[in-house]
């Protein structure tokens, strides 16, 4: 997994609540059996004027000039700003892969849907919950062209260009995995003995589960 420590980057403010996973990456792209290459299809329905599919070259499609990410000032953005309940809907990790593949490293919102939030950490992508009024402040400041933020994971702080710092919470295990870029499965397998012990005990209590 890609490690995450300090990321300083251009901010793209997506001023919508309840951005669902179908909007982040529409279902036709879920047919890919790969883990990469979803970036060009991020926010596909909003981003292009004509319909797309896995076998249509995005370069041949007409971008919607109204959409945020098609505006030159947001080119190269790596921090996404959004409103409440970001990532609601399906469990597709493809949503996180699409955001990462596009170049986003973090998304800041007042709240996230649970599965999306969980999935994010697995790909070295950081979802940050800030208070609604802090998010409001960032949206206001992001009107200024070239607005950048610094996300400091070790310090658990989002820093504005004006020097303000907003702290955020993250549980220690996830933080450790992200900062060190650890493979969670490898870590769990170090506890193989404990898992087997659980199974032995459980097999006696509830043998039908192992029949």
């Amino acid at each position: 997994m890609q490690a995450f420590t300090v990321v300083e980057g251009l901010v793209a403010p997506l001023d919508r609540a309840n951005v669902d996973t179908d909007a982040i990456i529409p279902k036709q792209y879920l047919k890919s059996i790969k883990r990469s290459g979803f970036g060009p299809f991020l926010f596909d329905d909003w981003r292009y004027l004509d319909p797309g599919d896995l076998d249509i070259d995005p370069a041949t499609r007409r971008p919607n000039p109204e959409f945020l990410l098609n505006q030159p000032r947001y080119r190269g953005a790596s921090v996404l700003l959004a409103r409440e309940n970001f990532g609601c809907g399906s469990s597709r990790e493809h949503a996180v892969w699409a955001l990462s593949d596009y170049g986003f490293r973090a998304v800041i919102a007042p709240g996230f849907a649970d599965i999306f939030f969980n999935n994010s950490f697995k790909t070295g992508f950081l979802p940050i919950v800030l208070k609604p009024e802090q998010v409001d402040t960032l949206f206001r400041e992001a009107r200024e062209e070239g607005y950048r933020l610094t996300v400091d994971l070790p310090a658990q702080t989002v820093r504005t260009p004006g020097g303000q710092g907003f702290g955020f919470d993250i549980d220690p295990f996830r933080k450790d995995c992200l900062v060190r870029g650890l493979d969670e499965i490898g870590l769990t397998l170090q506890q193989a003995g404990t898992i087997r012990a659980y199974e032995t005990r459980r097999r006696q209590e509830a043998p039908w589960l192992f029949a």
Partner: protein
Amino acid sequence: MSTGKTPGRTLYDKLWQSHVVAEMGDGAALLYIDRHLVHEVTSPQAFDGLRLNGRKPWRLAANLAVADHNVPTTDRSQGIADPISRTQVDALDANCAEYGITEFRMSDPRQGIVHVIGPEQGATLPGMTVVCGDSHTSTHGAFGALAFGIGTSEVEHALATQTLVQKKTRSMRVTVRGRVAPGITAKDIVLAVIGRIGTAGGNGSTIEFAGEAIAALSMEGRMTVCNMAIEAGARAGLIAVDQTTIDYVKGRPFAPRGTHWDQAVAWWNTLHSDAGAQFDREVLIEAAEIKPQVTWGTSPEMVVAVDGRVPDPAQEADATRRQGMERALHYMGLSPNTPIQEIRIDKVFIGSCTNSRIEDLRAAAKLVGGKRIAASVKLALVVPGSGLVKQQAEREGLDRVFREAGFEWREPGCSMCLGMNADRLSPGERCASTSNRNFEGRQGQGGRTHLVSPAMAAAAAIAGHFVDIRTS
């Protein structure tokens, strides 16, 4: 074993505690997974991950696989026409064959939507932890099982270790007090709940549904309710085990037998929240006040009763919400204050893991009985949730009722719930759908979805617009 000796534990506490392999501090734990359901969309990258790291599934028998999202619902004798869909289904077949995981292939009569076949086979049992790379895994909570959707990395983690690192959620209880009026279904109950608490209302929580109206539901109805717990933002939905649950499970192919059965039932009978158990949040809904529900917008919380009207954003004080409503109305092609019953529809979809079980098909068929679908309805689809549901419906003659009315009777799968196969809406088309999501583009780019119960969808197919099934 946890037999509920500690007073005041919630059902969620009991399920959680009996599956903790190791505490990890800060409310997190390594949780044992009893059942892992696998489908073609979220698993290929997980199997690749296993191969890449030279790992094997930890306990093969804990897994059950089926292809559902990409399968065609028309004639299958020629295989899958769309090469990209075919690749994905082929990948599942190949991965299951390589590792030795039981799979119901497309030609198997037991094939169907993963959340229909798990319970139908008895692969979902009370007291289990059940996971699947699909958000509607919450469905299985209807059995008093801790069931939740996971992403592909967690699919790989569950395959490789039979565990997941999880954080305990908050607990919430939604009590639906009293009895619902005639004609009101599980779908109306759960849509009314989402309308009340909002699509983020359950975020970070496990919702236990309780109350007389819930206890009175069949297992099919309970699955409909828990299925949509995720649309209320919850990590999982739960309903206590009772005789209805046990009767449903008995005799199913994967269910325990003999002495195992008796042992299992003894434990299952403890799977309810103890009197005095404390929840972080309680919501009370009066069953008698629930009317047939119809969504008008692009989020399941945008819902009103069938005798209501499309709301007016001008009445909404909160700016973010107002803009959301305006955008939804624009997308849906609706004007504020339009009576719901004046909304005309182009297509009807009866199916999905929310409403494709035998009881759903019976309820819809009852409304159809002897009538024809409206001339203005371009397509009305009935897609049973599994091959076995289809067979049962055919034994009861439901397929004829639908066909004679002008419905198409299809093969099982997810179908137009999300349109990954050939079944989808065209831009601007409006659909009465028994599925669970009305997001923009969900049923096809530019398509407009109204979520309703099977009876309401059937009635709309006949009338060509929404009708109040209580009065028509």
